């Protein structure tokens, strides 16, 4: 092996009294793709923020880039040196055009100092063509694009820097399968050009398909580094969680009860004439490609989106659904796909968030009953094994998995009959995932009716008693557990 293009030695980082990284070594080679994996809270993002100048490391660590010791104090310095990062959260301005977003702060200028629009648009078009996004007009406002396209624009921005090291933090989370394949091709061509790629992902299959090397972080320490070819998936999981995980997808068998939910001819924004029933003690999985209408269906059943025609019956009683209030009253709970935007109120405490929807039950008249609230929140924190110092700690200090547990507990505190889980494990690490699966089984055994919307096929196949497939807002397939296969579902999903 040649000398690494970028290397870090003995990097540590503490925030106040919390140690996030301890003595971490990390190195990437030109022309190779390095996977950086670890559970949520392992320190991956913090490490990359140090590399890109967002955080300063603690004293004692060393960063070398092209053999020279360097230290970046602002993201701009790192960018100018040739290190680009594609963040997990989209850092784009929806009001500006695609081209303006790509060249934000580095707009090409004319001789007179004004922005050279034609050069900018032409270069943007070139970058988009490289990502096979020719249908995207560089002058169109970004806000009108789907999340997947926005992610591609973010990637185009990183490419426009012509950086030597490109860090990608969960870039495929918002992408469709087709877009993911295009991204992989682009990464391979960048690799051939001699760029170094750092690839952060929870999706182990992607790591085995794409990456050359892998570094595993656990609790802020580097626990393994080596080539991907030397590892099996089980090895990797063991390194990540520090223990063996068997039976990744537990499934509880229980006899389905009476029909809890009946949806008849539902038509809503993105949903065309969907009918189905779901029983107590049953997990009904919803499969489909991105944009197939799963989230839209969930939101319509809950009252968050308007149901144009059709009816929703809970225990045989039609439910008027004008707002989520009606959904909650009818005993329907919805755990949102995007916890950051609409799942939790970030700076507020676990207590505040968990109790929010159930305050009616936890109050005497208009006054909140602190004692009842405390005991209910404590009970759910224990049942869900939420890892936090106490219930008054802000939810934004929790890891993704723990935030998801709080979000789940918040919905269940309303004592629903039906729970709709929309991508319950997105951005949740392997260990916490299994805990959430165990919880889903527990809910089922308690007689709840669970609707599971997920893009994670093994998860869907592992947990569901029945799988319904959506495509373009319509139901295109139905599989019982046992008959369902990944191929069979895929075939219906593209129908």
């Amino acid at each position, binding site marked *: 092996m040649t000398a690494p293009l970028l290397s870090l030695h003995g990097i540590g980082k503490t925030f106040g009294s919390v140690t996030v990284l301890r003595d971490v070594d990390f190195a990437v080679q030109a022309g190779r793709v390095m996977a950086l994996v670890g559970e949520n809270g392992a320190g991956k993002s913090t490490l990359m923020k140090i590399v890109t100048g967002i955080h300063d490391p603690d004293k004692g660590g060393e960063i070398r880039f092209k053999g020279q010791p360097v230290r970046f104090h602002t993201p701009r310095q790192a960018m100018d040196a040739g290190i680009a990062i594609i963040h997990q959260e989209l850092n784009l301005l929806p009001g500006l055009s695609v081209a303006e977003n790509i060249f934000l702060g580095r707009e090409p200028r004319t001789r007179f100092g004004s922005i050279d629009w034609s050069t900018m648009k032409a270069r943007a078009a070139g970058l988009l063509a490289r990502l096979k996004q020719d249908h995207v007009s560089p002058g169109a406002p970004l806000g009108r694009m789907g999340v997947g396209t926005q992610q591609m624009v973010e990637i185009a921005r990183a490419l426009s820097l012509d950086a030597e090291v490109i860090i990608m933090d969960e870039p495929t989370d918002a992408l469709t399968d087709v877009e993911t394949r295009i991204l992989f091709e682009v990464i391979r061509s960048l690799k051939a050009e001699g760029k170094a790629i750092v690839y952060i992902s929870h999706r182990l299959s992607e790591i085995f398909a794409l990456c050359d090397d892998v570094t595993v972080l656990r609790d802020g320490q580097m626990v393994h580094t080596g080539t991907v070819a030397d590892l099996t998936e089980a090895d990797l999981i063991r390194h990540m969680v520090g223990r063996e995980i068997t039976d990744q997808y537990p499934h509880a068998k229980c006899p389905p009860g009476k029909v809890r939910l009946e949806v008849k001819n539902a038509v809503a924004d993105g949903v065309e004439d969907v009918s189905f029933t779901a029983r107590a003690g049953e997990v009904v999985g919803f499969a489909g490609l991105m944009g197939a209408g799963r989230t839209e269906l969930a939101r319509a059943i809950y009252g968050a989106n308007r149901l144009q025609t059709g009816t929703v019956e809970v225990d045989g009683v039609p439910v008027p659904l004008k707002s*989520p209030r009606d959904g909650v009253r009818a005993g329907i709970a919805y755990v949102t796909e995007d916890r950051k935007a*609409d*799942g939790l*109120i970030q700076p507020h405490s676990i207590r*505040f968030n968990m109790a*929010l929807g159930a305050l009616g039950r936890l*109050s005497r008249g208009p006054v*909140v009953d602190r004692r009842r609230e405390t005991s209910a929140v404590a009970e759910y924190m224990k049942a869900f094994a939420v890892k936090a110092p106490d219930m008054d700690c802000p939810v934004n200090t929790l890891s993704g998995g723990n935030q998801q547990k709080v979000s789940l507990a918040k919905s269940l505190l*309303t004592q629903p009959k039906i729970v709709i889980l929309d991508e319950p494990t997105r951005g949740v690490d392997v260990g916490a995932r299994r805990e959430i699966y165990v919880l889903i089984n527990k809910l089922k055994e308690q007689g709840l009716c669970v609707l599971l919307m997920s893009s994670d096929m093994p998860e869907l196949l592992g947990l569901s008693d029945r799988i319904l497939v959506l495509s373009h807002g319509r139901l295109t397939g139905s599989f019982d557990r046992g008959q369902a296969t990944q191929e069979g579902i895929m075939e219906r999903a593209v129908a």
Partner: protein
Amino acid sequence: MPSNATSRTAETAANGGAGKAVLRFLAANKSLVGLILLMAVVSLFSPNFLTVDNLLNILRQTSINAIIAMGMTFVILTAGIDLSVGSVLAFTGAVCASLVAADASLWVALPATLALGAALGAANGVVIAIGGVQPFIATLVGMTVLRGATLVYTDGRPITTMSDPFWAIGGEYVFGIPVPVLIAAFAFIVCWFVLSQMRFGRYVYAVGGNEQVTRLAGISVTRVKIAVYAVSGLMAALAGIILTARLESAQPTAGTAYELDAIAAVVLGGTSLMGGRGYIFGTLIGALIIGVLNNALNLMDVSSYYQMIAKGAVILLAVLVDSRGKTNR
């Protein structure tokens, strides 16, 4: 968690020594430290400052702004703003004065005035929550329209009242304490209770924290918003009653620019204009800082032209200190 001063002290006292608890309480209530420092400095410069009479005088002068600012706190906690409070004060004051002048019973005049204030505020809330108009614009319209309505209603002339019981609301003392101060103290206790102990208070913080999450939790964001503007209108009307009673007349131009002092008090008290964070105790302290500052500048014979500049500078300084603390965290 929407924290408040008293529950914080209770918590800190439970898990630390008394000295540590005091330190932590002060760290959490920087505006209180600011107020104490300000009072210490002023007392060095002016021997007349730390006298019972003068302190009571400050409290009385502060009570009107404090009451308006408490209502404003509800609005700002939902990430809104209410620019109409000064005009609501003038309009409700005028209506109240004409009722009193027409010999209406105070038992009728006062509740009617408060209800009118709440209704005017609720109207702002409806325009904002149902009409979808930005709070800044909606209440700017409310401010303009109500000022005009006041001038129409009063024909541009003050309405004088001749009623001793009514005057007592603004001018009398009970146990040596001015009545407006007692009213403000009572309002503070009620506001504190609502924000920290009641379901509605939680919803106020929730709406300011994240509207979408609140809506998905099955809470009517529309109702919460209308209610906070109604609270603001009610408090402005209460302030209007006190001011009118004290002056024994309703001035058509009363309350001009009062919204600015109220917003300043809320911000000085550490409540975030982005919503979701802040507490009513801070607002009280913020109002007192402004009150002490006004009083001190008067005692030191600073011309009223310079007073405005000094006041602006102190507010800017306080907010800068506060925002530094936040970014360094």
